[in-house]
């Protein structure tokens, strides 16, 4: 979340929450090791940033192949037509097919919450969901929260409260928090938030700051979903 990279080559560090850059940094360094001798690393990262195709364009797989099912998923407001095998898991389709790698695979069996995202505004574990079952559904991932460079209040609160260490569970934590803060049936006291967030495990133990971030975001959520 706190990735900084030199966005325009000017030497001025900019922050772009849409494109956490560690993954791209590793990808870039791997792919361009031959070219690395001829250009500084930061320039290549900047170049990769410019070339990065934001996953905001509709995808259309065309006619389904043998054994595939055609489904429509509206992900972060973009409608995709995808062909998937019946056993394709929603989490894997988002990460591997749509390259929306913000949603994390932790335990992959519904126990850790790292894969939490919103389906039709309801938080679920995407690792225990067949993609084909979600034909026609509206999906919101961590990539869909910010408005351009403007962070969602929950994202901003996690940043402000340092509500993570390694960051692997963070997108799941944030998605759960967004759902909880939009759910009137869940109490606003600390105990209710702890209970409602108990499906998101943080191995680093950042719970204290996560709770503080969620409660801080509560007051800033009016008019934001």
């Amino acid at each position, binding site marked *: 979340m706190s990735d900084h990279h030199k966005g325009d080559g000017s030497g001025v560090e900019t922050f772009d929450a849409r494109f956490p850059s560690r993954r791209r940094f590793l990808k870039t360094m791997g792919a361009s090791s031959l070219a690395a001798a001829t250009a500084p690393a930061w320039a290549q990262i900047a170049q990769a940033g410019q070339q990065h195709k934001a996953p905001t364009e509709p995808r259309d797989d065309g006619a389904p192949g043998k054994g595939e*099912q055609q489904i429509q998923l509206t992900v972060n407001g973009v409608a995709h037509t995808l062909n998937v*095998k*019946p*056993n394709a*898991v929603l989490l894997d389709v988002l990460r591997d097919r749509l390259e929306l790698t913000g949603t994390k695979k932790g335990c*992959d*069996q*519904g126990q850790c*919450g790292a894969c*939490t995202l919103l389906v039709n505004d*309801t*938080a*679920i*574990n995407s690792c*225990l*969901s*067949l993609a*084909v*079952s979600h034909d026609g559904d509206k999906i919101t991932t961590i990539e869909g929260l910010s408005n351009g460079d403007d962070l969602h209040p929950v994202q901003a609160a996690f940043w402000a409260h340092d509500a993570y260490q390694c960051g692997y569970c963070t997108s799941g934590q944030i998605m*759960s928090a967004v*759902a*909880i803060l939009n759910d009137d*049936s*869940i109490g606003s006291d600390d105990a209710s938030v*702890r*209970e*409602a*967030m*108990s*499906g998101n495990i943080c191995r680093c133990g950042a719970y204290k700051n996560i709770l503080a971030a969620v409660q801080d975001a509560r007051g800033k959520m009016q008019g934001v979903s």
Partner: protein
Amino acid sequence: MREFDYARADSPRQAVSTHGESEQAAYLAGGTTLLDLVKIDIMRPDQVVDINRLDLNEIETLDDGRTRIGALVTNTALARHDRIKNEYAVLSEALLSGATTQLRNKATTAGNVMQRVRCPYFRDGVSSCNKREPGSGCAAIEGHNRSVHAVLGTSEHCIATHPSDMCVAMAAIGATVAVEGPDGQREIDFLDFHLLPGDAPEREHALKPGELITHVTLDAPLENSRSRYLKLRDRASYQFALASSAVIVTLDGDTITEARVALGGVGTKPWRAHEAEAALKGQKATEATFQKAAEIAMQGATPYAHNAFKIPLGQQAIVRNLTTLTAQEDRRTS
């Protein structure tokens, strides 16, 4: 995850017809049990019938006062429903004590009824387990049998607890399970739905091959009753019960006029304690009465190497629940 054929059903009849009587077919609702177990290769369907588009999402009050719950009503929706919160508080509380927010948002009423045991020897895929591999033995009996292993209803072939909280509340309330199958529709009494392991622990429920749960219908709430679910566990959230109790009582002054008691975490099925109820009915609501009923409830319990503590813990789950419930003002809000 292994490959399987997939079909999406538009009606219960179509679902049943697609499923057929094959033991290699499986209905898919929330997926929190099925996909978990397919991923670790414990369940191996070659045909998955997706029932999520069936019109089974309603909670209805019937003319006779019973409450009919569609198979696909999620655990969250059921727990938050006004009538459930007000008239069946024990069920709402039991639901909210189970799993996590995300899982409850996916998990369905029928799926919760059908969930499988959490015994690690069942899930590991290699140990002896008569549920997974009939005739192979039960590694839990001589193994680590502390948290998800029962003291009531066990056999020499299986000692795994039924993991559901929801089902414990339903056992106390009283319910019927409506099913549709190749031979048509029928209803099964909730207390007959889950089977004791006996000498065939691979048979877990009374469904015939291909039968689909369409509804669970709760008995009408006991008039002027109060109810509560108490779950005792190793941590405060997101943990299966070591012992739990679902209790419903009616009082006339300080005399118990009606009582329903069911237990979780201690039995191989959702455990209705009829004898304990008989020991409460007509008695004064005192700790001595509760203690006697609790002892009766756990009579015949069989402790294993690491779970003998569940016998006093199960008793305490009953005593404490009754103490709290009878001491407080009427909890019903309607």
